[in-house]
Structures are given as C-alpha cells and as structure tokens.
C-alpha cells in the first residue's frame, strides 16, 4: 500500500477515536451540570483538561465558585472543547481532521464509510455551542459519539481487511490507549475531599468506558478507586480497557508485518510487546500504577514515532527496489 495512504488512514483512525473520546467525556460532563454538586463538576472539567495536557481558556479553573458561575464557565469550557477551531483536541477539529484524512484516502475506504463520516461532518458544520446548549447538550455528544461508533461498525462490516484496515486500527488503538492512560493519570492526580466525591469521579469514569455495569456485577454497588482502575486497565473484556487496546494494537501490527527495514520493524514490535507486558505482567504486582500509566503514555508516543519511521517516512537509501 502507498505509504502516504497508510499514513492517512492511520491518522483517520486516531482523529476519529479522539472525537469519540472527547464526546464521551463531554456527554457525561454536561449531564452532570443538571444535578451534580459544583465540586464534582469542577473535578470533571479539571480531569478533562489535565488529561489533554491543556489549560482551559483563561488559564485556570475557579475551584470554589458559585453555582451560577460554574454553569456559565461550563458553557465557555464546552465551547472550547467542542467548536473551537484553534483547539487541536476540540470535537470540531478532531472530526474535521479525521474526515479530511478520509477524504484524501477515500479510494482506500468503503463508500459506506465515507458517507457516514461525511454526514457526521456536515451535521456539525451546521451547529454551534449556542444551538446545542439551548436544547440538550448531552444529546449532541452522545449522538456524535454514537456516529463515531457507527462509522467504525460500518468500517468493520464493509472495509477490506488489507493494510489500510490494519493501519486504521493501529491508529485507533494507539490513540485509545494513550487517551485512556492520560485520563486515568488525570483522575489519579485529582484530590477529592471525601470518599463520596472520589467514588462519584470513578463512577463517571467507569460510565465513560461503558464499564459501570460490569464493575457493579463484579465488585458490588460501591465504587472503590483501586478496583475501578484495575478493571479499566486490565480487563480484556472491557472494550475501552488499556489491556484490550494494547492487545488489539499489537495484533494489528503483527498483521501489517515488516516494513522495508527489518530492524526498524522489529524495534516497533518490541515496543508494542513491552506495552502489553506493562499491563499484563507488571500491573498486577505493582504498587506504583501511576508510574506504569506514565510509561504507557510514553511508549505510545514512541510507538507512534516508530510506526512513522518504519512504514511512512523511512529513508530510501540502500533499499531493494521491486
């Protein structure tokens, strides 16, 4: 496959995964605005911005603010994370970038995939924060996240399982793993005043990963941070768990096979293996889960760079020509 096409599909996978991730978080966050305490709302915004490594507009969040101020502030923050063109992590930017990559590689994806994605893109083009805020903002986020899920479902049903598919999946799962690890780190960095607050935060997180029911059936109704983190990190049956993302990603890399440079390919495979080992073998006995999560983030970044060097931007001197 043409290296640039593979790269475009890889980025498409990454951007659309990020779109879904941000929508999921914002869907929960805007739902919380209806009836949750100010502290919990504040903690939610703080977790989102910290996990992205970004500062909110204005530079910081007002921790001890009134109800009214928190709601007004939430409007600004939601706009920044949804429609702000200059924010590389906003829903608008991620969806537009994913769609732009798909547009350029449209000949490599199925027509059904393109139409689904284009419809989602056309929909968001017609909206702004005032419009979604005036009705039910959480519906917008839930629907947009569902559109991303539908897109991947359509992809699974219609896309030829060639390299294009594997690179899309690698992009998607590197992104998913990196976002999840960053989010868990941001949650660990929060310092809830009471156990109830901590339980509420982790409940939200379980909810974001569609894992609350699984948690409750396994551990009971009371949410404990350590158990929640364990589930989200290590359960291969939870769709968004770190364990599952890293397993799929490594399998997809194996399917792609070697790039033109065998040494570079092997190095990338080793990093993927190391990533899996962190969760499969180190995590269960480790005390320092924060340290492991930090390494996951770093290895994901390394793997991203190595994928580019191995398959997309390799040097061409002394390569065999076929």
């Amino acid at each position, binding site marked *: 496959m*043409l290296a640039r096409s593979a790269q475009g599909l890889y980025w498409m996978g990454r951007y659309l995964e990020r779109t879904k991730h941000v929508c999921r978080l914002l869907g929960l966050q805007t739902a919380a605005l209806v009836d949750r305490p100010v502290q919990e709302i504040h903690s939610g915004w703080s977790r989102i911005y910290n996990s992205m490594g970004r500062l909110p507009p204005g530079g910081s969040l007002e921790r001890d603010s009134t109800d009214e101020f928190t709601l007004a502030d939430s409007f600004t923050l939601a706009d920044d994370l949804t429609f702000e063109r200059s924010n590389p992590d906003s829903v608008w930017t991620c969806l537009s970038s994913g769609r732009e990559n798909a547009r350029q590689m449209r000949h490599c994806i199925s027509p059904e995939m393109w139409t689904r994605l*284009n419809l989602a893109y056309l929909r968001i083009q017609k909206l702004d924060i005032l419009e979604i805020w005036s009705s039910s903002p959480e519906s917008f986020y839930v629907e947009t996240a569902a559109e991303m899920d539908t897109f991947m479902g359509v992809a699974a049903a219609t896309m030829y399982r060639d390299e294009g598919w594997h690179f899309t999946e690698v992009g998607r799962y590197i992104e998913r793993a990196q976002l999840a690890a960053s989010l868990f780190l941001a949650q660990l960095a929060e310092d809830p005043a009471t156990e109830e607050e901590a339980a509420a935060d982790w409940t939200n997180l379980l909810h974001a990963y569609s894992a609350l029911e699984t948690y409750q059936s396994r551990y009971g109704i009371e949410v404990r941070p350590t158990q929640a983190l364990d589930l989200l990190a290590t359960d291969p049956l939870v769709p968004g768990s770190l364990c599952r993302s890293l397993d799929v990603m490594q399998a997809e890399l194996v399917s792609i096979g070697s790039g*033109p440079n065998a040494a570079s390919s092997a190095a990338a495979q080793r990093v993927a293996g190391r990533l899996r080992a962190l969760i499969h073998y180190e995590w269960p006995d480790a005390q320092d889960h924060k340290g492991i999560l930090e390494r996951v983030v770093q290895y994901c970044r390394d793997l991203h760079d190595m994928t580019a060097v191995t398959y997309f931007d390799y040097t*061409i001197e002394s390569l065999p*020509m076929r």
Partner: protein
Amino acid sequence: MDFKGYDMDPAIYDEMFQSRDEPRAQFQQLYDTLLGVSAGALNSIQEQVTRSFSNEGISFTVYGDDEGTERIIPIDCVPRVISADEWRFLDDGLAQRIKALNNFLEDVYNDGRIIEDGVIPADVVRECPQYRVEMRGFNAPHGAWVAICGTDIVRTNDGFRVLEDNLRVPSGVSYMVANRKAVKASLRRVYRSSRVREVEGYGRLLLETLRELAPGGRSDPSIALLTPGVYNSAFYEHMFLAREIGAELVEGRDLLVDDGFVYMRTTTGLRRVDVIYRRVDDDFMDPLVFRPDSMLGVPGLLHAYRLGNVALANSPGTGVADDKSVYAYVPHMIRYYLSEEPILQNVETYLCRRPKDLEFTLDNLENLVVKRVGESGGYGMLVGPHSTPEEREEYGKQVRANPADFISQPVLALSRAPCLVEGAFEPRHVDLRPFILHGQQTRIVPGAFCRVALRRGSLVVNSSQGGGGKDLWVLED
C-alpha cells in the same frame, strides 16, 4: 407537471421539443413521465439528487471562490436524451477525430510531414506554447499520445459541432457517472423503460486502455494515478477514478525515478510503477525538464518515459493538438492522415494571426466570441453580444497587440434543454463532453458529462465558471 410556461425560442434548437408540446421521439417517454409527476414530487426529486451529491461529497473547486475548497456541483434532475442514431454519429466522428489527432502528434514530433506538405503552417505549430521540443523524436507506445480525451460538443441549428478537444488532462467523467447514479435512483421507472445505455463501465474501459499501454506488454502492470493533490479542483475525480481502476492515488512526492525506472513509496518499500495516469499538467510534471519550481512533479519522469520504462497517459506535449489555433486545422488533419471527410464539423474559426481574419474579427467584435489560444475553462474570452463597448475597446487593443494569441468564432446558438428552475421548467443552454479512450483500440462509453449554463441566457457552461450538470441518456437501438 406541465410545460405551459416553457419559453421556447424557434430560433434556438430545443433538445426536448421539435415544436411546442411536441417532444422529439427520444424524449417521448421522459416527457410523458414528467407530465404525470406533480410539481411537488419533481422538486423532491431535485432535492434528493442535490442531497445525494452533498452527502457523498461530490465536489468541485471554483478558483477564486471564497466559499472554501469544496463546492457541490449543481445538478439538474431532468436528463438530456440522445437517440441511438445521434450517438452512432457522434461515436463515429469522435473515433475518427482521436485517430487523426494522434497521427498528428506522432507526425509533428517526428517527421513533420503535415507541415512539409503545407497543410498546416509551421508557425502555428512551432509557436504554440504547448509544443514541447523535449518530445521531438519520441514515438508514443501504440501511437497513443492521447489515451484519454474529452471533446466538447455543442448542437446548433445546423447540427453537432466540436467546440474543442481536451487532450491534456480532461476532467468531468466522474460527474457523468455521479449524475447517472443520482438521477437513475430518482427516476427509476422511466429509466428502466427508456432502455438507457450504461456509463458505469467507464472505469473498466479506462483500466483496459491503461493496461494496453504498459511497457513491454507487462501482463499485470502496476498503475498509479498522479494527482496534484487535494487542493486541485478535480481532486474528487482523481480519487473516484483511482478507486474505479484500483490504482494507487499518488502525488509527486510519493514517486521517485532511479536508473530510469519509476518507483512509488509503499509501506513495504519501493515498488515499480508501470503506467501513470497523470492529472498533472505538463508544466508541473517533471521539474528537471519543465518548470523547475514545480513541487507537484517527479524529477526524471520524462527521462523514464522516453526510455519506455513507464507509460504516461496522456503523453507530455499533447497540448499542441488542442491549441485553439491548431483546432482550426483538425478537419485538414482528418483528410490528410485518414483520407476521409470529417464526420464531425468544427465551429468556423478565424485565426487572428492571419491579417484578413484579424481585420474581420476587429470589425465584428460585437458579433463574435473571441478567445485566447492559451486559455481554457471559459477564462479570458470576450462574448461579443454580451459585452459593453468599453470591454470591446479594451479587448480589441489586446487582440491588435498580439494577434497570434487570439481566435474568434461566431456566437453559436447553443441548443437548450429544459431544466427545473425554481419549481418550473425553463430552457438552459447545454453542451456535452464525451470521453474517448485510445490504447491499442478506441473505446467510447455511450454517455457524456452534459454541462448546463445555469444562469438564464448564459452561454458559459464551464464548471469552473459556475455551470452545472445534467445526466445524459443515450438510448439503445
């Protein structure tokens, strides 16, 4: 929905009607269907067709447009219908024309017999900016200098006329297929009963043509479509065609030439490319030979082509044959190379490089269309009857300063076809661009991109000037 308010002009050929309320035979079924459809239903069909273009992102870029890079090409839901006899005539004429044009290209880059024999003046050819000295002495594989041609044809009261041949990187074929797909889905019953010939096989014919050009007759050649990139106005079409023929869609930066062979950068290393359907203009194709500042091309590509290690469709240098001055000589080429009379006629053309033609042109600016020989896409021309005295004065000065850069033609009464405009049928001027493929044999898909001048009274059908499209139905025998 009726045609009561339809504004027929007896002086202009109407595609649907031979006289008021009397449709031509090939339109009869469509006409009957339209009469039986309510205005509301037809408007819904129009909306559905337009929406399908928007949803599928079938777009075109208008240069200088501030609306953004993607603009949806307007499509009218009422098809234009061509009878089997009419198509047979066009098909024969187009096949004859591409044969003569390829003979001409092979000749002017080699022996130049047509010039020696005084059929075409040497300066018309050699002074043409599209004449590429770099191609002298080259023999195109199978004589296919032009493998893909899009010829613009209009119908006047005197019959079909060729307006121009597009022999470099003609576009529009994707809209032919897209228009068909959208309209067919909306006018299902009448489409089926009308027995319309299909255009969806264009991709297969294109692939067969490109395969025939493969160097050394390689049986499973690697084919790539070279695009200038996503900002090109026809990027949608490049993507569409790459998909249709299963080719990689490459940009110049994806290719490199080593030891006279062309390679593309894949995920597993460099892979040889045998055939390139290039949609990059000559000027930008190879910075070592043509424009050195081009970032879109591939250094060394022409060298590889001349060595016969890669096939290019179309060959560099074909622009000399669709130059507006050379165009006037196409009928002469047909007689000279094929010893046949031209089936399709040209539009009468005055070459301002000839003193008599210049004088005539300047004296009759208000009645003529004057065009710059180097421009295309409807740019840089003066439509006499629609111009102001000041515009004519200014344009006349330019013509006088560089007569060889201009040609003029009579204003044609382009035929009109009914279009749905704000809920009613209104006549609009139309043309058609069929696509001719030429490898070891000539292939023509029975259809065309039918262009419509959407503004009332306008004669400019170019997509780049805000024109739209229509589906064109060629009926079976």
